[in-house]
């Protein structure tokens, strides 16, 4: 098998030189902080403080997009929905997985502020993170899958139960600002790759994420209006009526199919790069779960 790969590699080596033709939406300046939205859409001032949203906007069909849907987030939206049930299940699953305490130790194995943390508090705000045990940058759901496997349980990345545990872990950081550092190291590299992917025009419509989330914010596609990409990660995993408990990578898969290209498996390096990029755009915004989105 290895020989085959080497032979193929040699045959294909010249192919590297010839970059496949793709277009890129011209790159806007992105800030790794939620306030960067003020340069992009300017709507941040309406949803900056989740406790003080302007409800008159919510009732306005032409203007409600300016709230970036934040009126559907907990604790502003206290209505009962399936996200709450999933959070309860997440707690039950967590207790079961953590019978011997090793599951939690596996999850919290990361450095925040230079010291090893022992509590779930704040954990959500520091993912994706570079994990020495995996040797790569990984999102919370990927780490949940990995740590559950060490306990002999299968919690596939993107599955309902994986997202339920993720939701429970996120709830332990409720109200705390997302805070990942993309200024250096592997996270910087991931941010840069993610930013490039965000502008790459591909698929059956020759569109990039930026074609809509940068160039057409506030415009509608039939009845849905495109909103800012800043601040979105704070409410994931999110409950979507038609799909169920949706992790960010599952959302990427759904976006991909809608835009006209194949989905990748949750946990794929490209999705993790996109997650790093979008999480950095949420830096400084409080974790708000459980939430719902159409």
């Amino acid at each position, binding site marked *: 098998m290895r020989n085959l790969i080497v032979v193929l590699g040699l045959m294909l080596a010249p192919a590297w030189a010839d970059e496949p033709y793709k277009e890129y939406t011209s790159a806007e300046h992105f800030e790794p902080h939620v306030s960067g939205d003020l340069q992009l859409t300017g709507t941040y001032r309406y949803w900056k403080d989740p406790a003080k949203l302007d409800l008159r906007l919510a009732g306005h069909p032409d203007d409600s997009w300016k709230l970036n849907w934040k009126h559907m987030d907990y604790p502003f939206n206290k209505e009962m929905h399936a996200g709450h049930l999933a959070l309860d299940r997440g707690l039950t699953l967590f207790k079961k997985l953590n019978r011997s305490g090793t599951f939690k130790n596996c999850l919290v194995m990361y450095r925040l502020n230079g010291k090893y943390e022992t509590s779930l508090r704040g954990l959500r705000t520091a993912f994706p993170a570079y994990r020495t045990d995996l040797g790569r940058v990984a999102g919370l759901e990927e780490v949940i899958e990995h740590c559950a496997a060490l306990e002999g349980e299968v919690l596939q990345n993107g599955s*309902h139960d994986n997202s339920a545990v993720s939701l429970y872990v996120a709830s332990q950081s409720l109200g705390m600002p997302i805070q990942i550092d993309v200024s250096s190291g592997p996270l910087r590299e991931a941010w840069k790759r993610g930013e490039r992917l965000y502008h790459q025009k*591909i698929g*059956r419509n020759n569109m990039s994420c930026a074609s809509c989330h940068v160039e057409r914010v506030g415009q509608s596609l039939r009845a849905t209006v495109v909103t800012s990409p800043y601040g979105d990660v704070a409410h994931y995993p999110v409950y979507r009526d038609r799909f169920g408990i949706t992790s960010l990578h599952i959302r990427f898969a759904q976006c991909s199919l809608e835009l006209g290209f194949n989905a990748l*498996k949750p946990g794929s390096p490209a999705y993790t790069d996109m997650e790093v990029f979008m999480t950095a755009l949420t830096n400084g915004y409080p974790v708000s779960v459980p939430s719902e989105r159409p």
Partner: protein
Amino acid sequence: MHTIWRVILVAFLCGSPLGYGYTPGEMMDPKIPTKTLMPKIKVDSGLLEWVPYSVDLSPWPTLCVDDPRPMPRPKKAQYVGPLRGDAVRGKAIAMDTQRGNCVTCHAIPGEEWPGTFGRDLRHYKQMRMSDADLYQQIYDVRTSAPRAVMPPFGALGILSDQDIRDVVAYLQSLE
């Protein structure tokens, strides 16, 4: 580079085209008619299901960083008149989300919730655009506007020559 080598390259870089279980992986299954899979979240389960998707998206590059499949370059259409388009068919194509899909981005007569990405087309005839220019706008507008958001329906092979003629006839009928 030959297509078959591109496909094999994708297999190595972005997972296997033979389906499940590869990380990283493009989610497709060559044994089903559309080859394309979509995730299905099963309540209270640790397994993620993948079920057939309605459209075959396997020719297109994915979001994978090193996907070597190229996108079609901007292309000038070889339009020759007369138009010979069928406006009734054209309207159906414009409303069909899997074909022209114009209504998702443009106002079209008879649609209550049209999109606002592009101009209102409800009185398109008043713009007095030539058939040839409108044909090229739908076929591939990147030849004159490289940064356009509107999909190049002809260059991507989404609409055929006759489809585009029909849509042109429809738009030119909107007084």
